């Protein structure tokens, strides 16, 4: 229960950042996704249950912020949060490389799954156009952002475990 409030605050802060600040960080219309980063970080430090619960809430809020169908991103982040959470036991053994790799794979999986769901519900775009203009660049941007913020974000969200920074790794 005592972890509920930091988790809720982190998600709320991520949604506010996503609405107010992150759009100005867009590069060639590709907007990074801090809600995704917080959900995956929570999953990696807290496990699959927290991962899928925060994925559902974060995804739903992300859907509500946008202009499209409400629900698809909640579905994707629920599953991604759960799967990323299954890696929890293996985190922090080898510093930042493993979690950032998980973020990279999860980010690409999230973007592709979201594109497929949009196509299924009839709100999507041609897959290859989406892959080149949104999915791959988006996943790359999220990964770069994860390299920059993951160690600090993970340390903030869970203080009772050591998170290696780049300096220690070097």
């Amino acid at each position, binding site marked *: 229960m005592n972890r509920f409030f930091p988790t809720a605050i982190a998600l709320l802060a991520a949604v*506010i950042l*996503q*609405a*107010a*600040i*992150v*759009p*100005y960080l*867009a590069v*060639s*219309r*590709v*907007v990074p*996704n801090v809600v995704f980063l917080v959900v995956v970080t929570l999953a990696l430090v807290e*496990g*699959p*249950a927290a991962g*899928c*619960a925060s*994925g*559902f809430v974060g*995804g*739903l*809020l*992300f859907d*509500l*912020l*946008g*202009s*499209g*169908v*409400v*629900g*698809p991103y*909640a*579905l994707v982040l*629920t*599953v991604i949060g*759960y799967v990323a*959470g*299954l890696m*929890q*036991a*293996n985190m922090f*053994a*080898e510093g930042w490389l*493993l979690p950032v790799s998980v973020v990279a794979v999860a980010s690409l999986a999230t973007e592709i799954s*979201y*594109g497929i769901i*949009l196509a299924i*519900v009839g*709100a999507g*775009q041609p897959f290859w*156009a*989406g892959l080149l*203009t*949104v999915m791959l*660049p*988006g996943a790359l941007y999220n990964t770069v952002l994860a390299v920059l913020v993951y160690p600090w974000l993970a340390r903030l969200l869970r203080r009772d475990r050591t998170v290696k920074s780049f300096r220690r790794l070097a």
Partner: protein
Amino acid sequence: MKRLEFDTSPSTGRPVLLVVLVIASLLVTTLWYREGTDGPIHVLRRGVIAASEPFLIVGTWVSAPFRAVGNWASGASTDRSAYEALQKQNLELKQQLAALQEAKLQYYRINALVDFVKVQDLKSVGARVIGRPTDSWSGTIVVDRGTAKGVKIGDPVIAAGGLVGQVIEVSPLASKVRLITDPNSGVSVIVQRTRVNGVVRGSLDGSLHLDFVDKAKKPIRGDVLVTSGLGGVYPKEIVVGEVTDVSSPQADLYPDVAVASRVAIDRIEEVLVLLDQQTPASLPGGGE
């Protein structure tokens, strides 16, 4: 270097929670499609727009210096040839403007005589852009005017250079606008020179394309596209953009026509919302 060892202990995940939340997500999606615009999820979205407005204003304020630096940096890269080309274009536009003003005066005189068409008296409200697209899949902005100023769903939004988009969500103090560059946007237009109809569509990369134009009547580079007024969504004769490239692959039914908006949509800061327009029964794809 330490050896990487994965934990092979049984998973601590709770598939039951996963299944419940997946079902909940699917139910939300279904409900979104089934409910009307006054359904709980639509109301919740309007609540989110209203609740996020103060944060959006703060975000706009915080990012202003960085945007100014970005605009300056993008302008600093303008080279001599681009400057000369712009000067030449400016001269041409001034000549065109003079010709158009003469044509406009002539039009008004003839119109007054035959009384065919009444001049539209458009009522509008100025608005500042306070929110940009929050994801890469859509093209929407948030403006700081809502139902308190008479803004309704379906109202067209314009800027000095032409059409910007259409209001798709409103709260008392803010509105969400689907840009014409949004992949789900479609605007019924006519080619000003030939009066041929078509539809301008947005795309994921923000470019505009003119669809459904007969190959035999394909436009040429420089043709201006204006709203057709069909469907009653947008008033007639609002400039949407101009043709920048035309190609006509043999296998395709329609020519591939690239269009550029005259509005710097990605950097737009102020807009006009046209009030008291006809509200369509529904907004399929967010456009006409």
